[in-house]
């Protein structure tokens, strides 16, 4: 590895998986096509692909292919190629402003709300392109629960915040709704704190409580994938741990993508880590590979300053 690793604008693709047909499992090629359409030689060090040794068998639930996002002349995401393994926790790491939130929002096609964002490339969930014009957006979005970076409780009571998604799904049975509200509030460790004021306004909760409420709200819809953008940024260590434990439990039934700035948390949670920098995926692999054997200098620097 040379010391002067050119960033940004380097042409080295660390994700080797580039494929033309998208229905089969990702194929690995020695070189990859970059945005200009040129074949690049992969860098000399042996590369890890999305499924490194220990999670070799996990199939991808989400495939992101040649994904680009531009806004007003600047590139926010640049040629992202990622495979998100099913039933695992994928952690996105990277300095502030590198495009993590943008990527999560695009997975939910919330980019639709920002006409200034120009999106191209493919994101496949279970083989379906979520950017396909005839895609049923509500279904796609229900498959993924997004936990935004700052909690935004809906302008209604705590109870209704959770009941909302259920009603949208067409669940009308009051008893079922009541049970689910209780279950999911318990799951995120909020029940004891709010059980006496379920019908009070959700906006009065503390930020940390709102964060957990938003998680409960997302879980209630029964997604397959949970997208969590710094889910513990406003939580005390104990609540953070509770959420982490909940995530590890959720892994049984869900796939999780978690953004965090806390390296220890990444280490505790991750099965797979993706490191981003200035809108590009620089390196990815198992926690062991990322933390103990980082290859690129940027990642090394990032890890050093993070400790």
């Amino acid at each position, binding site marked *: 590895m040379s010391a002067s690793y050119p960033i940004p604008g380097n042409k080295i693709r660390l994700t080797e998986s580039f494929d033309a047909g998208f229905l089969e499992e990702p194929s690995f090629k020695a070189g990859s096509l970059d945005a200009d359409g040129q074949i690049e030689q992969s860098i000399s060090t042996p590369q890890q692909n999305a499924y490194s040794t220990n999670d070799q068998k996990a199939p991808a639930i989400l495939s992101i292919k040649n994904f680009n996002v531009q806004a007003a002349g600047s590139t926010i995401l640049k040629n992202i190629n990622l495979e998100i393994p099913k039933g695992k926790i994928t952690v996105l790491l990277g300095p502030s402003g590198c495009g993590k939130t943008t990527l999560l929002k695009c997975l939910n096609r919330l980019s639709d*709300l920002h006409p200034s964002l120009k999106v191209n490339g493919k994101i496949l969930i279970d083989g379906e392109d979520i950017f396909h014009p005839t895609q049923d957006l509500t279904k796609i979005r229900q498959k993924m629960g*997004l936990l935004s970076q700052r909690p935004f409780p*809906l302008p209604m*009571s705590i109870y209704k915040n959770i009941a909302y998604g259920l009603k949208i799904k067409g669940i009308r049975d009051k008893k079922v709704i009541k049970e689910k509200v209780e279950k999911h509030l318990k799951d995120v460790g909020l029940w004891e704190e709010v059980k006496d004021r379920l019908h009070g306004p959700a906006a009065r909760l503390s930020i940390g409580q709102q964060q957990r409420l938003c998680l409960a709200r997302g879980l209630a819809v029964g997604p397959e994938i949970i997208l969590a953008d710094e889910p513990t940024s406003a939580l005390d260590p104990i609540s953070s741990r509770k959420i982490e434990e909940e995530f590890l439990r959720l892994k049984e039934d869900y796939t999780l993508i978690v953004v965090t700035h806390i390296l220890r948390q990444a280490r505790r949670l991750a099965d797979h880590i993706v490191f981003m920098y200035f809108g590009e995926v620089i390196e990815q692999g198992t926690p062991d590979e990322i933390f103990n054997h980082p290859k690129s200098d940027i990642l090394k620097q990032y890890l050093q300053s993070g400790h």
Partner: protein
Amino acid sequence: MAALQSLRLPAKLTDRLSTGWLNFAVLFLILLPLVIGVGLVIKSLPLLEQASTWKMLSSAEFSPQQGHFGFYAFIMGSALVTLLSFVLSAPVCLLAAIYLTEYSPAWLTQTMYFVIDVLAGIPSVVYGVWGVLVVVPLLAGYVAPALGLSTTGYCLLSGGVVLAIMAVPYMLNMLMEVFRSVPVELKEASLSLGATYWETIKWVVLRKGITGIIAALSLGISKALGETIAVLMVVGNVAKVPKSVFDAAYPLPALIANNYGDMMSVPLYDSALMFAALLLFVIILVFNSITNVLLSRVKEV
């Protein structure tokens, strides 16, 4: 520089001075309506001493020469023309504001802001002239005949239409601000739960903006209640309770504007006009109190 420095008042003193000014300004603003109200009461006293207040409010007979001062027709005239303008403008403004902030392309929204500014800047007398030239003949010549009715065109409906159009820029502008101020992340939260865009607007955006919406609509109503000249030009000014929207009406502001300064030789007339102003004042006061109660009811979410 040094001289300037030494000229600076100590922070504590400027602080005290500015709080003093603020208190004074606030006090002035609070006292202003009170002073107006008291002034109107004093000026209406001669009439109030002569006739029973209840009779004046409930009687529709208004013949000052005979000493009959019944205000019922004027109160109804004001209420009906305001109600009509509200019914005509509020739904349109609400839907237009939703469309312009949530759906329309940016250039259209920008154009509308420009149009709104122009509309808001047009003096009300111009709206009145426009009503006389367009709305009145349209109602008299086409709309009423099509319904098998006849009207001079100077009627309640003309007043309602003109007022509705005048209220649009104010209501629309405020409503658009309300919808724009709903954070996009809130919409994202609702959408990511699987709601459609329309469901999101219905249950999240409208709910979040409800206080602003009530405030905007009540501003529209207040404006319609107080608007004088444009209504006066098209509403017919006949002191009778209108039986249909094609009958003439006579709202309170029009009564005051039409007669103040002219008929002062008639005994008690000026006092009667002051009483009309007092009525208008009380109506606006009551209306705003109702709005406030409504706002405090829906406030916290």
